[in-house]
């Protein structure tokens, strides 16, 4: 298990290396003069907020990757104290809500590009409400498990269920704060879709990403 993690880490390094290699073979001492390829303030050509978000997603990937590694390793190390729990059926409903929420974000993003202010508002608000519904559904799943005697202290499978869903939920909650600020700006008078374009785009990327994380987590929870 750990060896797999080690090899994956090494492989990632090699891939990053290969991607960067062309830029890293420049001989800086040979070529005095400006190089217009590297413009001030915006060297990559993307908005800084977008770069920042992608780096944040890398950090969150590392976080959840390690949570899942810990999940598997705890399963291996536990010597038979791992009792799989019945996955609450409401999770399927929640998953659907999250997929729809992500789709809503995508529609809002397209509407921003097409400059349809009303459609942006509707899609954006619907997406957020669906995400809230997802969170409510997750809480319901917690309550159901608790009611049927699967407490957090009971068994590592239960503890991990609460831990993983909780960590994912907190990340979605963070996204909802940004969403709320965007909506607040959007409904103010005189704000055009173009003014919230970047925020909507960043929210969409984050929403798709969290959907992906949830699908992976759900698959891990279902498979064990």
């Amino acid at each position, binding site marked *: 298990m750990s060896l797999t993690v080690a090899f994956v880490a*090494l492989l990632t390094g090699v891939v990053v290396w290969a991607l960067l290699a062309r830029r*890293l073979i420049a001989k800086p*001492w040979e070529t005095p*003069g400006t190089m217009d390829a590297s413009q001030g303030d915006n*060297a990559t050509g993307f908005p*800084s907020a977008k770069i920042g978000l992608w780096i944040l997603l890398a*950090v969150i990937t*590392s976080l959840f990757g390690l949570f899942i590694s810990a999940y598997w*390793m705890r399963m291996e190390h*536990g010597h038979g104290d791992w009792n799989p729990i019945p996955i609450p059926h409401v999770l399927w409903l929640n998953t659907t809500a999250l997929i729809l929420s992500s789709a809503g974000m995508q529609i809002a993003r397209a509407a921003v590009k097409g400059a349809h202010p009303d459609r942006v508002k509707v899609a954006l608000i619907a997406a957020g409400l669906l995400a809230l519904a997802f969170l409510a559904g997750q809480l319901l799943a917690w309550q159901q498990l608790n009611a049927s005697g699967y407490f957090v202290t009971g068994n590592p499978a239960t503890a991990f269920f609460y831990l993983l869903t909780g960590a994912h939920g907190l990340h979605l909650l963070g996204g909802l704060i940004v969403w709320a600020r965007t909506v607040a700006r959007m409904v103010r008078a005189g704000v055009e879709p173009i003014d919230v374009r970047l925020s909507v785009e960043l929210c969409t990327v984050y929403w798709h990403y969290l959907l992906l994380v949830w699908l992976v987590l759900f698959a891990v929870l279902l498979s064990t």
Partner: protein
Amino acid sequence: MAYVAIADRDHVLHDPQTFIRKYIWSQDHKVIAIQYAITAISIGLVALAMSVLMRLQLGFPNTFSLIAPHNYYQFITMHGMIMVIYLLTALFLGGFGNYLIPLMCGARDMVFPYMNMLSYWVYLLAVLVLVAAFFVPGGPTGAGWTLYPPQSVLPGTPGATWGIVLMLLSLGIFIVAFTMGGLNYVTTVLQARCRGMTLMRMPLSVWGIFMATVLGLLAFPALLVGAVMMTLDCLLGTSFFLPAVISMGQPPTHNGGSPLLFQHLFWFFGHPEVYIVALPAFGIVSDLLSTHARRHIFGYRMMVWAILAIGCLSFVVWAHHMYVSGMNPYFGFFFATTTLIIAVPTAIKVYNWVLTLWRGDIHFTVPMLFAIGFIFTFVNGGLTGLFLGNVTVDVPLSATYFVVGHFHMVMGVSPILVVFGAIYHWYPKITGRMLNDTLGRIHFWLTFLGTYAIYLPMHYLGILGVPRRYYAFAGTTFIPPSAHWANVGITVSALFVAAVQLVFLFNLIRSLSRGKPAGSNPWRATTLEWQTPDTPPKHGNWGPKLPVVYRWAYDYSVPGAKEDFIPQNQPPGDQTPAGQPEEHVPPTGHGVPV
């Protein structure tokens, strides 16, 4: 109102007017850097004081009764954690990273100044929570800085109720602060470089800080995962890490947890952490050596590649800290191999530093002394690392003072020497005044020789088999008198070195008002931070116009040039042909054309 427009922003950058906006809730990267540095150094002095108390106990166990056994364990834990995370990580990345990245890249500020400010205040909160552990029932945790379960949460270990929870909480807060800062550093390097500043023209300081930040962003989540799960074990009674233990006759409250899992998570963070501290030091020392030897850095590209290679490899060596955990021998073999492989790029860097000095016009300034001291110390510490990287040698040495000597040399003294060198080097830019040279030399020689008097005998103790982590050695017949004398000598040296740091602090404070005015570029350096219109640089750094870069950062002693250095922002002209470092360049005097 004074303002400067930033190229891609339509709003203007207003100069802060009030005292509070300027120095307290400041969004200026230079102010935040100084806030980080002062906080980190202050908490570092607390950790230094704890090491003095521990040394007094070890050197003169029957003379002083300043600390009780449980205090010893608490101090050893807090000393390690503070020095590694709250001092070195915060100082190199939050302090030097904040100050140098925008100035060296030719940016006006970090790309997310508000988040940068927040990063400092959250870091301060983490420090306060850490310190709060001293004032709760039971005091801070005494589990050792690695916080291994189950002993970190079992009764009998100091601070097993409140202390450990506050420590984990503080680490969690620190990670949030670091992530906010780290996003800034990486995005600024990628986005905000001035025109002409290609990646391969960046000074190595920026490369080192950049790669260390990437490592931190990817490695700290492992610590966060471990901290969250252990907090749940402590507070809610889950069994992620805690096996069934009958403690003090009580029936087990946990069942089946895996202490080994915590070790994997901790060291998956812990080993990259070594390089989070080392890579900025590598980068900064490269710039110090090049500037004060008036010679281009030898093998610039190789240096950059080595930084990247060390960064990648540092994620696949973590289990060499766990050879004694009873893991599969094949597993140990894999990690011994990767550990020895990581020595290759590290050795390349050492060769290149030495070859930078070769035929250079070496000026023995105070920063240069510290930089050369770093090379010696790092080689010494690194060589013992080759011993410990091998399973068969590590197993008998792992629990002894050999390990203490090794890691203090390689990741304690070495980075601290670079910190001192860097402060002597950049203090003129930060304050506009030079530090006192004589006091600096006294500080260097006494610190440098003093640390050898502390840590070299520890290797001897380790080979004798003297175990680390012990409060006293009374009644142990296998420890010869020579070991006791060595301990006395170490303690005396440690007190001496700690006292010498007061000279440094005195110099720092006195030079603020009494130091010689520095001018804008006292070291005649090429990098952009020395070319600012004002010293110390004002808010926005560059006045009305951003600099444009025409060359790499190491055009020292270029044949045919008027001066022995060509700033990065000097356009190419007839007088200043491009540097041709691969050719034989005889050393030149102070700006004398060849």
